[in-house]
Structures are given as structure tokens and as C-alpha cells.
């Protein structure tokens, strides 16, 4: 990754035994989003090349760099069960937990 990158705001929570990540990436659509899982590393790249209009900036508060974020996944995450979606500039990634790591009830015989 060359150049500076922006850091997205991130929410992480569990719901129904899945881990959900929400990353705020305004200006990123489905087409310029790249999510890669490499061993235990989750890499999220949001390209915003198209998001830099020419002109004279009278007010400039927005960061228009590309997004790049890396997260390490521990052994409880089922890397084959990862789903992602993108809506209104928010990327949602759902990470499944491995069956063997889920809490289970032990019946007393």
C-alpha cells in the first residue's frame, strides 16, 4: 500500500453468536472495496480514487485518502464463513465463529 491511508471508524459487536464489524467508509462502494483473508489476517481496502474532485477547495474537512485496515483473526473465527456487505458508506463484515468454539450446554446424566 503506497501513500497515506485513512482510518475508518469501526464498531465491533457480537450478535447471535456471530461477530459483526461495521466500518464507516464514506465514498466507498461495493466496486472499489476489497476484502482479503490471508491466513489469520483480514485486510480491508477501500479505494477512493474517484473521490477527489478537481477544483479550488474553499472548505476542506474530509479526508479523501484510501482506506486500509488490517485485523488479526484468532482461532475462534471460521475463515470459511465470512460475509460482507456495503450500504450507505458502511461496510459490514460478519464473521462466523467455529462450531467447536461455540459455547455448548452439557447435559447432566
Amino acid at each position, binding site marked *: 500500500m503506497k501513500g497515506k491511508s485513512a482510518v475508518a*471508524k469501526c464498531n465491533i459487536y*457480537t*450478535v447471535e453468536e456471530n461477530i459483526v464489524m461495521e466500518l*464507516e*467508509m464514506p465514498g*466507498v462502494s461495493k466496486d472499489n472495496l476489497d476484502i482479503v483473508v490471508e491466513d489469520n489476517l483480514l485486510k480491508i481496502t477501500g479505494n477512493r480514487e474517484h473521490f477527489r474532485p478537481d*477544483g479550488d477547495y474553499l*472548505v*476542506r474537512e474530509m479526508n479523501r485518502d484510501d482506506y486500509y485496515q488490517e485485523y488479526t483473526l484468532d482461532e475462534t473465527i471460521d475463515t470459511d464463513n465470512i460475509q460482507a456487505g456495503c450500504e450507505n458508506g458502511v461496510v459490514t463484515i460478519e464473521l462466523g465463529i467455529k462450531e467447536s468454539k461455540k459455547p455448548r450446554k452439557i447435559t447432566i446424566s
Partner: protein
Amino acid sequence: MAIMKWKRNDAESHTRDLDTIQREINDLFNMDFFPGARGLFDRNLFPALDVVEQDSGYQVYCELPGVDKKDVDVTISGNVLTIKGEKKGKSEKKDAKFYRKESTYGSFQRTLSLPKDIQNDDVKADFQDGVLKIEIPKMEEAKRKSITINVK
């Protein structure tokens, strides 16, 4: 005589100078450990705004990730533009257990006074990928015209 950089002598130019100083100070402190904030002075209360001037008009951008299109309200009266709305958290769900929460929710409002040369009856707004883009054309007279000077 050397050519001097033309400086716009209006109220905005001073704030722009301050902005530059602020940005430089912020660059000294890399704020990566606090995502979303772009510097020491950034308090994250308002959605970020960009105003871009082009030959034909102005473009106003507003960063609103996670906001629904129907919750955004844009009004223009004279040359004052107001963007307001509410960000409703999708994740305010039943029994969600949070590990990390960096997003803020609730209502927001930003008011901006635009330059005088705008044509406020032909404003277009578009909301895509969490970014609101408002296009405001300039008045015909204000559009930059290039004149060719013939050298004899």
C-alpha cells in the same frame, strides 16, 4: 518584478490560512490512534464538509456514512445552505454485545453561507455511498470566461 501569488482578499481567506496552520500542527501529531478524528482540534461533533469551487459552480460534499437518504434534509435560502438530519444506529440491536464502538449517532446540522454568486434555484443533491453531494451552479455573469488576446 516577480509575479506575486494572487490572494483572495475576503473573509474566508483568513480562516483558510488558519486551517493550513491547523492541518500542519495536526500532521505533527499523527492521529491514527484515534480514528475519525483528524487532529487535536477535531471533536467530531459535526459531519465533515468540503466545498469545491469549479468554473461552472460549487460542489458541497458532506460525509454521512450510515445515514439513510430519507433522514437527510437539505434546504437553501438565499445563499445559506443547511444540511440536517439524523443518524440512526443500525447496530442498536437487541442483545448486541459491543467490543468497540467508535461511531456516534444522533441528529446533526451544518449551516454554511455560500458565496454571493450562486444560482439557488437550480441546486441538485445526490446521496451515494454515505456522501451527500450538492451541486450549486454559479450565476451566468460569474462564470469564468477566458478571453483570447490577439498579438499583433
